[in-house]
């Protein structure tokens, strides 16, 4: 091949090619940026507009401007407070359980199953499954009359329960199904984190006679911190948007015990046909998400 320097390659082709080549960095980025702008800016602006109006279910009636009225309702609406509390309880309990189980399992198995990738993939199956399929599976298991869980309770000599239909057990039932589906996620990320730990500090610690408990607190946990931060935040963001499991398992009941924010917003927007108020609640959720994800992104920068 003839000698062709960088300058030569730029000079090749017609003016169109040269222009394309010069602006390539913008041209390659443009479609994604434009699509995402259209798909996020429009909804956000529209939400603000909708949130300050009362929107009648009748499309022929004009929207009535109510200013901050919908936001004021957030403070006085007891249903919203119930939904908010349920979401917070679900998020804290489910993510904590998933974290403890996932980390514990990863620590225990790290030394023994490193090479069994098939086994790992089998354990990963729950989190890949469609949430709706997971929901109907657990609905079948929880079924009070012929469900398999009550059969197990019976065999163990324990009282049978209504599970998802019981006022006190409904949230617990949702949490168990979520823990079943998402513990593998924490487990997988923790295993990846553990596999990338440096060896030398542990050798030094072992020489100094540090107990394995000390090694865990002083070495393993600090090294895992970036991975833990990412795993927890992704889980928290996901838990905040919980919808499918509740929709199928309990529909928010009994007695609103499992009514979470996503479900309440959905009900207000469609069943009660009050999109203006639903928009105000969505903006609240968006605000919480932005605060959390900003924090998350700061952690990501640390991890890079």
């Amino acid at each position, binding site marked *: *091949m003839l000698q*062709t320097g*960088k300058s030569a*390659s730029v000079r*090749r082709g017609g003016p169109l090619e040269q222009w394309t*080549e010069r602006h*390539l*960095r913008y041209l*390659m*980025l443009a479609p*994604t940026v434009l699509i*995402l702008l259209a*798909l*996020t800016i429009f909804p956000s602006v529209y939400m603000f507009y*909708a949130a300050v109006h009362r929107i009648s279910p009748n499309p022929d009636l004009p929207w009535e401007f109510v200013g901050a009225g919908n936001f004021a309702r957030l403070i006085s609406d007891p249903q919203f407070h119930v939904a908010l509390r349920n979401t917070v309880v679900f998020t804290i309990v489910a993510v904590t359980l998933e974290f403890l189980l996932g980390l514990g399992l990863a620590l*225990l198995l790290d*030394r*023994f*199953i490193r090479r069994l990738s098939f086994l*790992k*993939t*089998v*354990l*990963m199956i*729950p*989190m*890949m*499954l*469609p*949430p*709706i*399929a*997971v929901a*109907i*599976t657990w*609905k*079948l298991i929880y079924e009070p*009359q*012929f*469900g398999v869980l009550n*059969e197990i309770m019976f065999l163990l000599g324990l009282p049978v329960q209504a599970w998802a239909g019981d006022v006190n057990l409904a949230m617990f039932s949702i949490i168990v199904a979520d823990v*079943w589906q998402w513990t593998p996620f924490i487990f997988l*990320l923790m295993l*990846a984190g553990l596999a990338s730990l440096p060896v030398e500090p542990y*050798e030094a610690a*072992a020489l100094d006679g540090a107990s394995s408990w000390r090694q865990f607190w002083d070495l*393993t946990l600090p090294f895992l911190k970036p*991975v833990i931060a*990412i*795993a927890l935040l992704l889980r928290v*963001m996901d838990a905040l*948007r919980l*919808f*499918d499991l509740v*929709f199928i398992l309990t529909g928010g009941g009994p007695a609103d015990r499992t009514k979470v924010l*996503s479900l309440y917003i959905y009900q207000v927007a469609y069943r009660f046909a009050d*999109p203006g108020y639903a*928009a105000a609640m969505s903006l609240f*959720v968006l605000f919480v998400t932005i605060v959390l*994800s900003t924090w998350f992104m700061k952690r990501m920068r640390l991890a890079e």
Partner: protein
Amino acid sequence: MATIRTRSRTREMLLRLSAYLAILVALILTLFPVYWIAANSFKFDIDIFAVPPEWVPRNPTLKHYDEAFVQRPFLRYALNSFLVAIGTTVISVTFGTMAGYALARFSYPWQWRKQISFWILSTRMMPPIVSIIPLYLFFNYFDMLNTKSALIIAYTAFNLPFATWMMKSYFQDLPVELEEAAIVDGDTRWGAFVHVALPLARPGLAATAIFCLIISWNEFLLSLVITLTEQSQTLPIGIAGRVTQYSTYWGEISAAGFMACVPIVIFAFLVQKHLVRGLSLGAVKG
């Protein structure tokens, strides 16, 4: 992890034993629900309602598969799910790969690279419940409710940022020298991307595409709001539609639910090497 030399051998033995026990329990707990939905999909109604439950179907039948996929439109739902997933994946991976490459390789004025990267990530974080109201009103206005195109547009909103970050992460792992060599040899910048970087990133491309397929296939809330007709509804909506206030068609939804899981399990095995990166949006390299 480094070797933790414990004082006694017994303790090491106990630890190993508890690890095996933990694997066994975890495997049983993981697989039983999946087995249970599959087992029930092959039972006659009377056996589904049996007390005590039939642990293994005694009279296996394909009746519910016939009900769901022949008599009721679940095949149609599955096809809709598939078409929407393919459409979303093609759009997201095509544009996401280009954007991911640009963000991994090019420099921009005023820290745009960083700003745009994080802005794209933040769009991925947006909960779907936040966008359903404007999307519903938008598609209603343009008469696009109950169309697969509307679903593809809605799903692209969260698959495109995902694909961008995944591909950015893969391109950052590739050595830039090969592309530089191609340019020195007379290739254009675009040519270096197409002829050198893309072929090297093929495993990453495949993994990203499969993740997009899974995410779209599993999606429920947006489809619930946007589609109301058989011609446009996806599999999860079809399944949820057979769980009514008055009765639940257990056999039918078990059959459809199990069939919804089968492709996902196959996909999971195909991307097993990329799972960690895919699930952490490229942040953790497993």
